């Protein structure tokens, strides 16, 4: 039997995880969550965006969305989430981007009005302190729905405001109704 081989990069990566996981059982429970605000990071057509976790009522993936005939543009259909039937809107379409062919992720909006946003890719959750947020001064599709930009490890990304998105949805639905009424 020869001497033990030198640890590879995977072993080097697994070691701190294993130690952290083991150490987690030995640490005292945290008193409270770390200060700051958490945002969901996502991507639409490859561009980074963010949603405030406080504005989200839930996150789901792979829920079936039933499309309706003669739906307004950006309306993906209806879906069932947490025992409630709610409309699902395509976030990319609301931002004026080309509609996504496959948007498996749905973010349930918090608040009394049940509605959800569908998007393509979920990157993760990012918790930033107040220094991590800056006013959003960029243009593009997020200009009408973002006031701040969250600076994460991969750069700034506009933080979409659900209130503004909901207003846009309402404007879109009202214009559609006006368009349909003779």
């Amino acid at each position, binding site marked *: 039997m020869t001497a033990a081989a030198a640890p590879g990069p995977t072993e080097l990566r697994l070691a701190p995880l294993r130690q952290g996981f083991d150490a*987690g059982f030995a640490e005292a429970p*945290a*008193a409270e969550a770390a200060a700051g605000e*958490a945002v969901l990071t996502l991507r639409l057509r490859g561009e980074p965006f963010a949603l405030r976790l406080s504005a*989200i009522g839930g*996150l789901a993936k792979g829920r079936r969305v039933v499309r309706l005939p003669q739906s307004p543009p950006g309306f993906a259909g209806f879906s069932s989430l947490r025992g409630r039937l709610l409309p699902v809107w395509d976030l990319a379409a609301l931002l004026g981007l080309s509609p996504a062919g496959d948007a498996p992720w749905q973010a349930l909006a918090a608040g009394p009005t049940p509605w959800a946003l569908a998007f393509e890719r979920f990157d*993760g*959750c990012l918790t930033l302190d107040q220094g991590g947020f800056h006013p959003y001064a960029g243009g593009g599709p997020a200009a009408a729905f973002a006031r701040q930009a969250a600076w994460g490890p991969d750069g700034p990304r506009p933080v979409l405001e659900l209130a503004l998105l909901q207003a846009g949805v309402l404007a879109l639905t009202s214009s559609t109704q006006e368009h349909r009424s003779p």
Partner: protein
Amino acid sequence: MARAEWTFGQRIGAGFALAALVLAVVAAFGHRSSARLIDNDRLVEHTQSVRQEVAGLLSMLKDAETGQRGYVITGDEAFLEPYTQAERTISGALERLRHLTEDDIDQQRRMEQVQPLIASKLAELKRSIDARRTGGFEAARKIIATGRGKELMDQVRQILGDLDQEEAERLQVRFADSEASVRAAQVVMLWGGVLGVLLIAGLGFFIVRTLSREIIGAVGHIQSSSSELQVAANQQSIGSREQVTSITEISSTVSELLATSRQIAESSQRVAHIAGETAQAAGKGDQTVQRASDSVATTRRHMDLIVGHMLDLGKKSQQIGGVLEIINELSEQTNILSINASVEAAGAGEAGRRFAVVADEIRKLADRVGGSTKEIRTLVEEVRAAVNTTVMATEGGAKAAEAGTKQFSELAVSFQGIVGMVGTSREVAREIELSTRQQATAVEQVTLAISNIAKATRETDVSAGQTLQTAKELTQLARVLSRLVQVEAGS
């Protein structure tokens, strides 16, 4: 044969033949005229003889009659001497005259007539003489007085006169013929001689003129040919010298070729020896190739095992990927649950704050698990790619090993072929050695032939010099001949 193709001898011969023909004609005419003249002379002489014989015969008869008269008158026997002489010779005269006139029927007829008359005359003379002797003068006178003697004498004179007249007329004719023959001979000889002289002169002029022209032309040709011959001889001499130089170089080259042929023969012998050793080495190489082919086949089997193991490893990697998908799904679900737990904790107010911390830690752990899962997926993909690459490389190696096996088989066949070809090469090398030795022998013969050629070339050079000298002499001779002929032609 055309006249232009006649040779000088033929032309001169023809000219002389023509002149000789003219002379022959003239001579023939002369000969004929002379012959006729001689014949006429002979006939004239014959006629003269006949006339003399006639005159003699008549004179004999007169002498006999004279003697008879003298004796009758005188009774003296001495007067009978003419009679006796005539009686003794007259028969010979008649015989000669008959002989001279035997080719003439008329004259013979006259001779037949005169001969009995003469006999009767002589008989009458004898009777009178006998009568004188025996009876005296009177008896003789009576016989004479009968006139028989005179009558016979007149008839004899008449016949002999006719005969003489006939001969005289013939003599006249023959004189005329002789004169005509002489004149004709003179004319023929004169004009024949003139014609012959003119013909010979014309032919001579024609032949000289023609021959002069042709000789001048021939001399011109000879001069030009001599000049060309000189040039050719000079060129031949130069060419012979260059040829001698070239032959010397060829001789040295052939000597080198001979040495090279011998070296080739020795090299071929060594090649045959090396070919034998190569055949043995090729046989050993064939065995080595067979062993190498077996090794390659073993390697191929090992590679097949490696491919099987690698394919199993690929399947295992796929299975790991499937497990990773499950883990990823779990981490994703955990993440979703933690987020939803955070949302719910936020909605629970102060009571949910600690739960929110736990949810946040769960989410972070899920994030780490998700990140690690991605890395593991990446690693598994790399492993799968490496496995695929290894499988492909191994299959390529297997194919290469298979190709190597095939190539080794071909190599074995090639080695066997090499063994055969090396044997053939050894035989060929031996044949080359033999051929090269024969070639060396042939080269020696060529060297000898070249030496002979060099000798012949030197002789050719000498001959060219002689030819040059001869051409110069010929040119000089042509000039002399041309000058002679032109002088002749001018004159």
